[in-house]
C-alpha cells in the first residue's frame, strides 16, 4: 500500500518549486490547470520532475490524463506498485 500522504507531500514540493504555489494549496481534488494555475510548459516540468522523484516513467499519452493532483497520486502509486 503506497503512502498517499508522502506522495502528496512530494508532489506539493514539486509544484511549489516550479510554480510558487503554496504546498498547502496542493490537495488531491485540485486541478493542476484550473485550480493551481499551472500552464502547459509548467505541467511538462511537473511531469518530468515526478518521473525523477518517483523513479517512474509517465508516457506523454498518459500525462495528458493527469488532470488533478489525485490523478497524479493514483498514477504514481500504480506505477510504483
Amino acid at each position: 500500500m503506497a503512502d498517499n500522504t508522502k506522495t502528496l507531500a512530494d508532489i506539493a514540493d514539486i509544484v511549489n518549486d516550479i510554480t510558487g504555489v503554496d504546498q498547502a494549496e496542493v490537495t488531491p481534488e485540485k486541478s493542476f490547470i484550473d485550480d493551481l494555475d499551472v500552464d502547459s510548459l509548467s505541467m511538462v516540468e511537473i511531469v518530468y520532475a515526478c518521473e525523477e522523484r518517483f523513479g517512474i516513467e509517465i508516457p506523454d499519452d498518459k500525462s495528458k490524463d493527469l488532470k488533478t493532483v489525485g490523478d497524479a497520486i493514483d498514477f504514481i502509486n500504480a506505477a510504483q506498485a
Partner: protein
Amino acid sequence: MSDVVITGFGATTPLGGDAPTTWEGLVAGRNGVHTLTEDWAADLPVHFAAEAVDDPTNHIPHPKARRMDRSSQLAIVAAEEAWADAGLELPHDADGEPVDNGIDPERLVVCCATGIGGLHSLLGQWDIQKDRGFRRVSPFTIPMLMANAPAANVGLLVNAKAGVHTPVSACASSSEAISLGLDQIHLGRADIAVVGGTEAVIHPLPVAAFSQMQALSKRNDDPEHASRPWDADRDGFVLGEGAAVLVIETIEHARARGARIYGTLAGAGISADSHDLVQPDPTGAGQASAMHKALVAADLSPTDINHVNAHATSTPQGDLAEAHSIRTTLGAAADQVLVNGTKSMTGHLLGGAGALETFASVMALLRRQVPGTINIEHLEEDLPINVVRKTTALPDGDLAALNNSFGFGGHNVTLAFTNANATR
C-alpha cells in the same frame, strides 16, 4: 530635438549588488577580481575572474528565477533598481494585478543587450541531455538561452510596448543598446527607454576559449592586479560579469513627472572597422570616427571634453590603439582630458561593459570625481593621453565626457554625456 536625460541607474557588478555600492567601489579604487573557487577553474589556463558579488536569485521569486538564465536574472535586478531609482512604480503589484504608474506603455521602449546570450542555460541543458536524456531538458531552455531573453524579461517587468530590442555587438553591445534607445526617442517612437546590458559567461568554455585567443590575462599568481590598462606589463583582459541599466527620457517627459536627473545623454557615434574579425584597426581610424561622430551628434568640441571612460581592457594592442585614437580625435585638447579605465576594477563585463561604464561616466560628471585606474605600476611610456591613476576631481561648471566601447567584429560605439539638466 529634445534633450534626452538620464533619470535612473541600476547595477549589479563585481563591486556591489547595486549602483551606489558600485560607485563607492569605483571611487575607492576597489578591486573586483578574484581567484575562482569553482572546481573546474583550477585545471584551466586562467583561474580568476570578476564575478558579480550579489546572487541575483536572492531578489527574484524562485519560480521566475528558475526560468531565467543568469544573464537575465542580473538584468532584471539592475532594471528593477533603475526603474525604482527613476521614481517609478512597477506596472503590476506582487499579485500581478495592474498598477497605473503614469507611464504609457506605447511610449516605452527597452533596449537591453548581451554580448553572448544565455550561455549557462545552453551548456547546462546540453550537459543534462547528454547525461540524462532529452526528457530531462527543460521546456524553458530556448527562452532561457536566446540572446533577446534579458530584453524580453525587462520588457515584461516594465510593460514596454513601443518595442523591445537586443543589439549584439560583442563588447560594444550595451553602448549600442543605449545608442539605439536614444535613436528610438529621437525618432519619436518613444518618450522613455530602459537601456543597458548584461553578461554572465563565467563558465569553463568561454574561459578556455578566450584564453585560447590569447585575450585573457594569465596572471594567476596575482589576480587582484591582473586588470591593468596601460601598464607596461599588461597581458590581457579579465572576464567579468554583471549588468547595468539606465532609464532615459526626454527632458519634457522627465520634468512633467518631476523626475530627478543625473545628466544628459548628449549623443552617440557608431562606426565599423571592417578591418579584421577580432583585431582592431591598428590605425585607430574606426575608433576615432566613432568618437568624432559622437562629438558632432552632441554638438561638442574637443575642448568641451573633460573626461573619457576608455574601453581599455588591459590588452597589449587594444589599450595603445585607443590611446592614439583618443589623441587623434581630441588633438591638443587631450592634454586636459582625464582618461580612466574602470575595467581595472570591474573586469570586462562584455555585453554589460558599455552600460556599466556609462554609469561610471555620468556619475563622474555629477559628483565631479573621475575614478582612478588601479593596478598601474609602470605606466606605458610616451602615452599620448592623460591617464588618471587616482580618483581625481573635476572642475566646477559645465562638464562633458565620452565613453568608448569597442567589440570583436570591429564595432565601435562612443557615447557623449554632459552634466546639463542635472538635478540630483
